[in-house]
């Protein structure tokens, strides 16, 4: 599903923000990605979401090596990936319904198929009565749920979420994590980047711990209680 081999990444001529990253995610697995602020989590997610190319090393997604992909192959690959951004990245002038419908519309689905499906999903994330609301009128948690609905509407094979529960209360956060679990049960590979150690420990999934651009695998119980601590 996802394989990184000695991957390095830098922005422009700057220093490497990711160094010698190697890991393998099996299809249908569920991983947390955590680490201190500035450790390179967002950069790693960018590589997973195909928004950046690695500076070195091999990134293989869905059995295709990313550096060999032609530009025309990228959209089809990206449609297999759902991304939930920390800053939501919703289109403010579109309603919640249209925002969630966008991936289907881009993929060329017919309107009648799109809107029934989208309305059901919005209902499921608790926004059934807000389908026509535009993002600026929604709370942070509601926006996050719209963003999640948009990420999963296409039934992606890989779901990436960057701090998905950061802007919602604990109860709603748990509800969304259960949603991710449900998606994972039907075969979606899930990677959730979070600072929330309670959440990580509660769910107990394998953890990719990133610090200073270097990655290590850990169990949920073996994560520093505070990221600022030196690991020695």
């Amino acid at each position: 599903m996802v394989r990184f081999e000695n991957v390095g990444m830098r922005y422009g001529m700057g220093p490497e923000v990711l160094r010698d990253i190697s890991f393998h995610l099996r299809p249908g697995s569920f991983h947390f990605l955590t680490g201190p602020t500035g450790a390179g989590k967002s950069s790693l997610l960018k590589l997973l979401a195909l928004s950046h190319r690695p500076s070195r090393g091999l990134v293989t997604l869905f059995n295709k090596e990313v550096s060999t992909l032609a530009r025309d192959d990228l959209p089809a690959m990206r449609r297999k990936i759902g991304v939930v951004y920390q800053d939501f990245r919703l289109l403010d002038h579109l309603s919640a319904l249209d925002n969630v419908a966008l991936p289907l519309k881009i993929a060329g689905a017919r309107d009648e198929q799109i809107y029934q499906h989208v309305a059901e999903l919005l209902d499921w994330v608790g926004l059934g009565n807000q389908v026509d609301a535009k993002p600026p009128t929604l709370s942070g948690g509601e926006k996050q749920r719209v963003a999640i609905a948009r990420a999963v509407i296409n039934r992606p094979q890989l779901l990436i979420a960057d701090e998905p529960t950061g802007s919602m209360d604990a109860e709603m956060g748990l509800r969304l994590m259960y949603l991710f679990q449900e998606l994972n049960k039907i075969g979606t590979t899930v990677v959730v980047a979070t600072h929330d150690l309670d959440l990580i420990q509660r769910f107990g999934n394998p953890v990719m711990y990133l610090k200073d651009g270097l990655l290590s695998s850990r169990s949920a119980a073996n994560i520093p209680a505070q990221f600022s601590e030196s690991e020695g």
Partner: protein
Amino acid sequence: MIKLFGKSAELQLEKDVSTRYLPVVISAMIFLAALSIGGLFSLSNAINTWSETLTGNLTAEIAYDPAIDLDQEVTTAVKLLSETPGVTAARAIEKDETLKLLEPFLGKNAALSELPVPRLIEIIIAEDSAIDLAALNEKLVAAVPGARLDINRPWLDKMVTLGRSIQVLAAAIMLLIGGVTVIIVIFAVRTGLIMHSEVIQVLHLIGARDNYIAEQFQNYFSRLSFLGALPGLIVAIFVMFIFNFLVGSLEASMLPPLSLGIEGSIALLLLPFLVALLTKYTVRQVVLKSLGRMM
């Protein structure tokens, strides 16, 4: 048509301040282009008319010579010319008629009749006749000493050269207008790409192809160009009507009225569509090239 001019649903280009004045610029460009087309086709039609008139209508001239009977010479020349195949008619222009032609330049004067004016013969050539004017001239000179066939060619050649030069100038102006329009559109599109880079990135990351994004740009900009072109064209047509009215009100004006003909009118009416197509193509190329640099 709806697809061609559809709205940019996701990018909301309609709300861009940077493109608000583009229709005004396009309008001015189309106004100038329409006037250039007007000039181009009017001149082309005028040149054709001059050519047809002057090649179908010749003059023979018999130089004044007090020692010979000019009337006899004229009769001989008219007979010879009338019998030439391809000549529809040959008519001697009477001396009084010739003097009348000189009146506007020399005034009415009794002494006018004493002037040694040459005698003229008007010759009408049959349409589509392949008459050899040089051979006819030689034949005429041999039969009537002092006679000469005035085929108007040098004057016509100069007029045609002048007309063609102005046509080339008009075509160059058209090219310049097209080039400036393309440059303006390129800058507007680049600004739009920068302003909407975040939305473009989101669209890419949820699987949009470059074509999907390029279509929104090209449809929006071609709509702006088309709508901007219409007022420019209408004003240009209005200006041409005013010009023709003013030319018509001047008696014996040296200026020909603007006459576009069918081809010119079609070219004029096609202008908004052509500028929309030019814009669409330009925008597509710019957007695809810019998106190609992104991941």
